[in-house]
Structure formats: structure tokens, C-alpha cells
């Protein structure tokens, strides 16, 4: 068995969310988009005293930064030893099926999508982890608004962006 079924993933993720929320764990919510502007601050050597946003995210950005290093490590080890999916690749198989065979097209679209993804997540104050998983688990109204808008936009974009007609 080289992958876990969805229900096992859901149960394990629920356990991890509860551990993180618990006062015996981290006493906070899991999030994974604040680290990006935090890293931008580190990489471009921005003075944290000069930028309001860097001051606001100092704590959550650093916390998520450490978590990210853990996630990279955990993901790498699992992909090499368990799922055996580690390989260098430039273009996903389904992109070839439903979009095109051009590596340049994939890389340009990836760059563009990554750029607006982080701006979107920071405008909303969270991403799939912070809003959808952690926020909805607290039944937060903000998370439900975000989750609804993302679901609808995601499916509309999928319809329009990919060539799904006539392919199984």
C-alpha cells in the first residue's frame, strides 16, 4: 500500500489539528501562507521595523517557517521511502492531457498563479490550512465565506482554463 485512503488522511489530519490547537501542543491554529511574505522579508532583507506587515506577521511567520522546514523534510522522506514518487519533473501528466505539452507554458502559468495565490491568501488572511481546515474547524464565519468563494472560483476556473470536453 503506497498511499493512504482519504478517510485515513482525514482522521490523521484531524488529530494533527487537535494536537496543534491543544494547550499541550502549540495552542494555535495550523496555517501555511504567512511564512511566504515572512520569507520574502528574509530573502530581500527588508527591515522589519519599517514595514507594518512584517511587524504584524513576525510571530506567525516565524512559527510557520519552522513548520514549513518540517513539512519539506517530512514530505521528502515520505516521497523517497514510502510513496516512491520522488523525481525531478517540469510538467504534470494531467497538464499535458488537459492543457498543453509546453514546459514554458506550464512554468509561466505556475509563476503567475503562485504570485496571485499569495496575494489572495494574504488579502483573505489565510489559505486552505488556515481558513479551510483550522477556520472551519472552529466554525468561523470568515472561513465559511472564504471556503465558499474559493470552491466556486476553483471549479469555474477549472472549467474555463482546462480543455475538459471530450476527454475522460
Amino acid at each position, binding site marked *: 500500500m503506497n498511499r493512504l485512503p482519504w478517510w485515513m488522511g482525514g482522521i490523521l489530519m484531524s488529530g494533527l489539528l487537535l494536537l496543534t490547537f491543544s494547550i499541550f501542543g502549540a495552542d494555535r491554529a495550523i496555517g501555511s501562507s504567512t511564512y511566504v511574505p515572512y520569507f520574502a522579508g*528574509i530573502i530581500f532583507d527588508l527591515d522589519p521595523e519599517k514595514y507594518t506587515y512584517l511587524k504584524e506577521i513576525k510571530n506567525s511567520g516565524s512559527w510557520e517557517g519552522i513548520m514549513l522546514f518540517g513539512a519539506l523534510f517530512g514530505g521528502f522522506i515520505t516521497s523517497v521511502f514510502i510513496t516512491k514518487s520522488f523525481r525531478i519533473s517540469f510538467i504534470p501528466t494531467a497538464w499535458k492531457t488537459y492543457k498543453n505539452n509546453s514546459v514554458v507554458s506550464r512554468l509561466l502559468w505556475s509563476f503567475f498563479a503562485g504570485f496571485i495565490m499569495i496575494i489572495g491568501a494574504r488579502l483573505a488572511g489565510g489559505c486552505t490550512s488556515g481558513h479551510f481546515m483550522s477556520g472551519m474547524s472552529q466554525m468561523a464565519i470568515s472561513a465559511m465565506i472564504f471556503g465558499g468563494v474559493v470552491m466556486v472560483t476553483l471549479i469555474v476556473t477549472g472549467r474555463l482554463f482546462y480543455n*475538459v470536453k471530450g476527454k475522460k
Partner: protein
Amino acid sequence: MADVVFITEGDSLGARVLQMVESVVDQDHGSVALVFLIGVIFGGIIQYTRVDKFEKIAGFSMLKDTIVPKMLFLAVGLTSIALYFMIEAGGAHYHVKPIVLQGLIIGGVLFGISMAILGKCPGTGPISIAEGRIDVLIGAIGGVLGGLVFTLYYDDFFKPLMGESLGNGILPDLFPGHENMVVLIFGIVVTLIAIFIPKVELFDEADLSQLSDDQRPDKK
């Protein structure tokens, strides 16, 4: 400790990374080791369930794969009930994000579009990079530049665009006196949604070919 303080006060890239570690030490949100471990488990679950794959997230946007919503809804359904009673018992606290209506809607639209195109989100993206996906690494470079632009123009443009917060409301607050019932109904309904979303899957031949026939999920 004097040495460490000296290093973290420096201005090099290494010192700035050490300041990140120091900032986590100064917070009361778990030790650095625990936070790292939370990340390892997070990455392990995402990789082991394969939800970091383009085929899973972009596949969902084309409605050709439903593993991601099934897993997300199940995690939310189970956690919502357990967390509510954990908070009631004093074992956890609320960390509710504010309702910044414009920010949530504009941000949600940008996020939904980019999630369909990239086929990742900020949590699953790094796991893909860890398994060697260069296209996602390029996406991450775009993301860091997005984060840079957001930081630079936060005061003048993005903060006004987000609008004022309408509070940190949660669903049970809207039904005073029936909080426990609302939580149970919410948790059970969300869990049932997870179970009843029809299971469809889009597989990636490039991964499947690494496995022997009896391990291939598409041949079971």
C-alpha cells in the same frame, strides 16, 4: 547563550534565519522541536495521501477527482466537534480570523483561480517541491514575489482593499442557547458531506508506473 544572541543580531541571511528560530523560542506556541515535528507530520500526511498532486487539486477543479474535498471535509467535521468540547474543557483556545469581507472575497477569488491553475495551495506546494516538482518551485518563486509586493504596498493599497473587520464571529454565536446542538449538527453534516461526495479519481501514470501491479490503486 551570549553567542547566539550575538549571531542573531547580525544582518546576514544566516542571521535572519536564526532570528526566525529565536522568534519561535520567544513565543509560547510550542518548542522549536514540536513545531518542526508538526511540520513533519503535516508533510507526511499530505505526501502519503498524495493530495499534493496536480491531478488531485487541478483534477478537483475539473471535477475529475474528489479526494481533496473528501479528506478536507472529513478533517473539518471530526475536528469541529472534538475541538469545541476541548475548548469548553479549557484544553484549547479559539484562534478565529476576522471577517474582512472585501479581503475574503477578493482574496478568495484570486486564491481559487490560482489554485486551479497551479494545482497546489501554499500548504501542499512545498510538499510537491520536496518530491522534485520544478514547476511548483517556479510557482513558489512567484509566491515569494507576491509576498514581497504585498508587504511593500500593504499600508497604501492592500490594507484599505481588505476593508474593516466585522468581528471574529463563529457559527454557534448566531444561535444563543443552542451552541452544543449547532456544533454537533455542523460536525455531523460536514462529516456526512465528506462521506457522500462521490469518489472519483484522476491518476498519474508517471507515479503508478513506479509501483508493482498489486500496489496500483487504479487496478484494484
